[in-house]
Structure formats: structure tokens, C-alpha cells
């Protein structure tokens, strides 16, 4: 086992402490925005629920992936200049294989950042050697840099001037891991956009949510309090402005939905779904709430309906023609949402209004498609 140790001057400890103080000040000042970040630091751990296959499927479906947006041109796609497109002649089988490959790539691009509990502070004294008191004025850090060990399982210990040998705290661990095994794009010092309140707020005001969330994923670990605070504020800002469409087809929509549902504030998302006529996704959202909180009236019905909805293709735009099966399924969905509104919703009147609007629109659509079918004959 190779061991590297570094000597940190006393004043470095001070900087760590002062930084912690900064963070506290920041959390207070965010309240100017009237957004209070809520972290996953309660008794219940969200991870088992988030990683359960049932919830993952629901979250992925709610993301409503549109391949035009998933594979869109990005400013940070790593190309200094654009490349000339390439062309291929493909048979049907080859094309199917290519599309399958693209689906797999889309799954990678849409992999959701994990939602986990905030980590506990490390307080693990390995030994106390009174013989070493006053040996040096600095503390020593020892890092195991053996190849092939995961960063979170790496052995990093510190020897204090008073002779105590202990495991390092999360901040020091992160710094040393980044020093010896740098993650490209991650900075040792926190970027200004997260530490400077004005800059952070300006990003929110400009609705650069995806940029913010992507950078936060890169800079922080998912179990860090800073990460959860930043994402929480961003999600709430999105919820306030109802700009859910900006996150659709990205990997952040799932965690956002999870966050809103976990904190029982997904009613404006439900309203947006109803207003845009996506009743099926409304049912999925109700099913998600049932899976997470288990407080939806007739929740098993919603979950059973969700299983029926999942095999149907994703509706990226409003349908123009309807089949009889579609009509049946949608009617069931409407009934399910009605129940949800009556028993669980916090925005009853608005959601009822939206649902009524959907019903009227849907009735016209049914008449139109039935009339067309009649006109064309049954063939």
C-alpha cells in the first residue's frame, strides 16, 4: 500500500472553518428569495425509494424524452468547430440496430443524478498517542493512493499536533481525492456561481437551470449538503415559475419530480400537466406519490393504471386521432385524477378547472375521430 502524506499549515484549518461560516451566512441570505432550501436530512432515507425500479420507470416516463432535445446541439459538446455530417445507406435491419444503439445512448444521457440522504459528519478517532503531543506544529494527512480504489472508500487519515489519529472530514477527503485523482471539470475551490449569491440568483433569473444543475453534479457529491441546497433552490425556482419544460428531456427532470413529490408540492406540476392535456402523465404522477408517500386515495388504482399506461408510446404532442382503446384509457385516467383532486390536491379549484377544460377539448376530439372513422368506413 502506497501512502502519501501532506503537511497542512495550521492556518488552513482556519480557512476551512471560515468557509463553513460563509455557508451558514449564505443559507440565511437565500431567504431573501423567499426560497427555503429543504434537504434530504430527515429520518427517512430517500435512496431506497428513488432507486426502486418502479419509481425509476415512472420518473423516466415523466421525463418525456424527446430525442430531438436529448441529442440536441450543446454549447459544451466538446467541439471547437462543427464537423461535416456523415451519411450512410442502411437497410431496415441495420436502421433498427442503429436506433437501438441510440436508445441506449439516450439512456446514458438521461441517467438521473442519485437522490440520497445528506452524509453525517465524520468523527472517528483511530488512536490517541500522548507521546506525540507537540511533535510538530502542523497536522499530517495520509492518503492511500493505491490504484483502483473508489474515492469514497479510500483511506485518508490525519494526525493532529496533539497526537490524535483520526479519519478526515468530508471536505478534506474531497480536496485530497481531487488533488490525487482529479475529476475533469471539478474545481478544488467552489466556483463563484455557487458561492456568490448575486451570480447564483442571476443564473436563476436567466433560467439557466440545466447549466446550474449540470455544474452542481460535477462539482459536488450527491450526498453533500451544498449540492442538495443548490438543487433544492433551483427546483423550487422552477416550480415557482412553472418552467418545467426547460428540464423535460434532461436527466434532471426525474430528481426534480422526486423532490417535489417527496415534499408534497407537486400540485403545480400536476396543474401544468392537466393544462397541457397530459392526463396519462398526471396519473403517473399520482402513482409516484402513492409509491413515495402512500397517501393517495385509491392509490392502488392509480398504480395499476400506471402499469397500463407505461407500454403505450410517449405522447410528445397532442394526438390528432384517437382509437377506441385510447379513449377508454384516457377516460380511466380522468376518473383517477378526479379522485386525486378531491382527496389529495392542494390546488383543487384550479385543477378542476383545468380538467374540465381538458374534458371539453377531449370530447371534441372524440367526436372528430369517430366522425372521420365513419366517413372513411370501417376498413
Amino acid at each position: 500500500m502506497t501512502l502519501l502524506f501532506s503537511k497542512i499549515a495550521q492556518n488552513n484549518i482556519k480557512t476551512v472553518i471560515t468557509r463553513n461560516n460563509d455557508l451558514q451566512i449564505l443559507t440565511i441570505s437565500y431567504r431573501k428569495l423567499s426560497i427555503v432550501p429543504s434537504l434530504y436530512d430527515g429520518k427517512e432515507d430517500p435512496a431506497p425509494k428513488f432507486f426502486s425500479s418502479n419509481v425509476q420507470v415512472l420518473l423516466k416516463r415523466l421525463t418525456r424524452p424527446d430525442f430531438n432535445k436529448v441529442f440536441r446541439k450543446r454549447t459544451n459538446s466538446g467541439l471547437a468547430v462543427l464537423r461535416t455530417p456523415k451519411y450512410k445507406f442502411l437497410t431496415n435491419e441495420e436502421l433498427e440496430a442503429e436506433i437501438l444503439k441510440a436508445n441506449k445512448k439516450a439512456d446514458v444521457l438521461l441517467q438521473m443524478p442519485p437522490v440520497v440522504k445528506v452524509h453525517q459528519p465524520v468523527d472517528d478517532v483511530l488512536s490517541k498517542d500522548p507521546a506525540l503531543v507537540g511533535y510538530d506544529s502542523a497536522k499530517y494527512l495520509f492518503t492511500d493512493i493505491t490504484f483502483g480504489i473508489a474515492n469514497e472508500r479510500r483511506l485518508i487519515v490525519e494526525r493532529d499536533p496533539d497526537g490524535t489519529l483520526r479519519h478526515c472530514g468530508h471536505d478534506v477527503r474531497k480536496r485530497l481525492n481531487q488533488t490525487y485523482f482529479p475529476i475533469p471539470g471539478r474545481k478544488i475551490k467552489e466556483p463563484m456561481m455557487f458561492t456568490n449569491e448575486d451570480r447564483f440568483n442571476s443564473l436563476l433569473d436567466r433560467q439557466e437551470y440545466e447549466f446550474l444543475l449540470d455544474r452542481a453534479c460535477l462539482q459536488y457529491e450527491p450526498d453533500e449538503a451544498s449540492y442538495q441546497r443548490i438543487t433544492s433552490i433551483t427546483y423550487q425556482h422552477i416550480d415557482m415559475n412553472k418552467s418545467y419544460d426547460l428540464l423535460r428531456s434532461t436527466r434532471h427532470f426525474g430528481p426534480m419530480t422526486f423532490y417535489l413529490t417527496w415534499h408534497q408540492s407537486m400540485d403545480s406540476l400536476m396543474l401544468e400537466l392537466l393544462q397541457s392535456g397530459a392526463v396519462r402523465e398526471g396519473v403517473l404522477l399520482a402513482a409516484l406519490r402513492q409509491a413515495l408517500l402512500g397517501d393517495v386515495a385509491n392509490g392502488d388504482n392509480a398504480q395499476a393504471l400506471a402499469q397500463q399506461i407505461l407500454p403505450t408510446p410517449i405522447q410528445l404532442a397532442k394526438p390528432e386521432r384517437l382509437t377506441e382503446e385510447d379513449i377508454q384509457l384516457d377516460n380511466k385516467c380522468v376518473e383517477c385524477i378526479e379522485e386525486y383532486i378531491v382527496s389529495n390536491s392542494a390546488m383543487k379549484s384550479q385543477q378542476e378547472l383545468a380538467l374540465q377544460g381538458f374534458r371539453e377539448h377531449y370530447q371534441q376530439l372524440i367526436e372528430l375521430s369517430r366522425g372521420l372513422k365513419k366517413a372513411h368506413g370501417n376498413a
Partner: protein
Amino acid sequence: MCSKLLSMRSLIQPTNAILRQVLICQNKTTPNLKTFTTSPVTCVNFFNKLPAEKLWKSVTSVSNAGAKKGRGKGAGRIRIRDLNRGQVIGVGKINMLWPGLSAPVIRGRELLKQQRLPDDPDRMEKIIQLRDSMTKFRRIRLSPIERGWSGSRMPGRSIGAPDPIGEDVFTGFDTKVLQLRSLLIMKGSLGRTRNYQAMVVTGNGQGLAGFGLGRAKEAPAALRKAKNRAGQKLMHFEIYNGHTIFHDFYTAFGKTKIFVQKKNEGYGLKCHRAIKEICQAIGIKDLRAKMEGSNNLQHIVKAFFIGLLQQRSHQQLAEEKKLHLVEYRAENEYFPKVVASPSEVRTKEEIPKDETLDFTQYVMNDKVILKKKKFPPFYESMPHYKLHLKKYEKYRNHEKIRLNLKSEYGEVKSFLTDKYPEEKVETET
């Protein structure tokens, strides 16, 4: 030539002396018969006998043989000047006021009298300056936007839209001159005569373009003819995504061969200047063209237009091959985008073994562009280059570090800057 002018000046002086003598003679009240001579006094000389035109000709003319050798051209050439320019009747060397000629007779209530005014010392200088400005050669200066490929020469310059025909106006069109040259032709009665030939391309930048050839005795007429003919021969070209061609192609006319490549957005036009002008007229923004063989301009133009016309759309290509045509873009993570599908698709078994399936090879008709090997620059094998590499190795990340420090601290500083503030004060002073 200059000596000729000097000799003219020496001639002028003696004539003046004679005139003065004559005047003196007239002023005397009693003629002195002693000075009287019977020999004739000639008041007519070379200068007042001949008109200015002939005088100038005698100075500027070059013999026929000399002209053939190129004499009387270029620097030092004497040019005809209009000596009357800048001169006004009534105003002369002596500044006199002539009522009724150089001034009104009555000014206000006062009757003006003939009188001498103070001399204007700059008068002669001004006239000489005016005369010089006539003779000195002035180059036509064009604004950088109006310039052609080479200064004020016509090729590459814009000559506006073709003339309207009846009520049909060519709105949004612009014409660029590609070639303007003089041709010499022999005529039975006139011998060798000069003709001008112009080739232009006109287009609206939105897919419509045409080229024309015009011949005339004068250059402007040839340009006009070519321009109007180009307006009559417009062709329409589809532009892929509004910026480039549909696919790579090979085209040739005579001994001129052109390999044209489709390029990404922002690539620009990297090709022969004539092809660039044509592309701009059509509205193509990104393309690369490699020429081989003859670079006869008219052949280039014709070959390129033929190549563009022979392009096949994606749907046509898919139908020809009976296969899906799929586009992959790096910026879209190589997502397979189907750009064209045929009405019926062949299976793998139906495709013969020796069929070309590679897209580029298929659209180029199996022609391959010669890619020359790129050799390293000559200096890379020299000892000083290795020395340079060694010397600058330690600076290789400095730019990045500077940028990072500036973004983090607002200035270039190290961890020692705060520790030793006195150093900073010293460097500032």
C-alpha cells in the same frame, strides 16, 4: 523633353525686348530718322503663328517608330495642359479693378473708377497648382467594399442587378464580374481590331443564379451584355439547410476537374475565387472545392454549374439505392437521423457483393481525391527547434494558470502575495 520647354522660354524673352523697343518708338513724339531702318520687323513668330493644339503636339508627339517601342508612356511623359484654365478675363498679373469687366460699374451710389489694387502674391502659385493637378496621374480609389479581386480592376467587382425587362425587375439580384479581357480579331477591311469579352455571374443569394458571356467593342458594353444575358439564363439550385450543397461531387469541363465537398456550418468557402463568387450569388455558404488540371476560368464556371445541376437530392439517392439514407452529426452525439427513405427498401441479401455502399464513394462516382501526404515543416528537424521546445516547456501551462488566477482572485497572484505585502508595494513603485 524638358530641354524643349526651356528653349521655348528663351525664345519668349527676345520677342518681349523687340516689342518694348517698338513701344518706345511709338511714344516718341518726333520720330528719329537716324534709327529708322527699312529692314522688316517680324512681329509674327513660332508662338503666335501656330495654334496651341499644334504647339502642344510638337512637344508631346512621339514618332511612329518610337510609339511602337513604347516611348511617350509611363513616368516623365509630357501631357497637354489647358493654360486657360483658372484664368479669368480682367484679372491678371497686375491686380487692376476694371469697372464693367471685373467689377460692377456702380456699387451702391458710388461710380467705381479704374484703379490698381494690392497684388495677390499667391495667384500664380494657384494657377500652377491647378495646371499640375491636370497632368498628374490619379489612380481611381475604391472603397474596400467595392474593390474586386485586385484593386480597381473589374474581375470580382459588383455591377448591380441585370436591367429590367419590361415590367420584370430583378430585385435582390447582384452581378459579379468573373472575367474581363480584350480579344484581338482580324477583319478583312479593318485589320486587327480589339474586342472586349466579359463573363459575369448574377444571383439573388436564395438559390437563383446564372452566368453570361458578353462581347463588345467597349468594356462597359461587354459587361452590360454579359449581365443581361446572365439574367436571362437563371437556374434554380436547392441549398441544403440553407448553407451548403447536398453531397460531395466530382465535375469536369474540358481539362478542368473540380472535386467539391459538402461542409459543416461555419466552414466558409474554401475554393477558387470564381467558384466563391458563384456560391455567393447562389447563396451557398459552406463548401470546399479542389481543382485539378486546367484553370481556364470559363471552364471552371461551366464545370461548377454542371456539377451543381447534376446533384441528386437525398430522396433521389435513397430511391436509387433503395436504402434508407441516414445522417450522423458529431454535435448531436451521432444520433441516426433518417433524412430520406425509399418507397421500398432492399434487404441485405438483395444487395450485390461488389456494390459501393459508402456514401461518399457513391456520390463521387467512385472518383477519389488525391490526398497528398503532409510533410513536417523544415525547421522541425533542426537543432534550434528542439532547443526551443526544451526552453518553452516550462511555460506551457502559464497562460491557463494566469487565466485561472484572474478569474479566481481578479489578478495574477500566488500564495506568497498575501504573506509578503511589502513586495507588492515595491513592485508598484
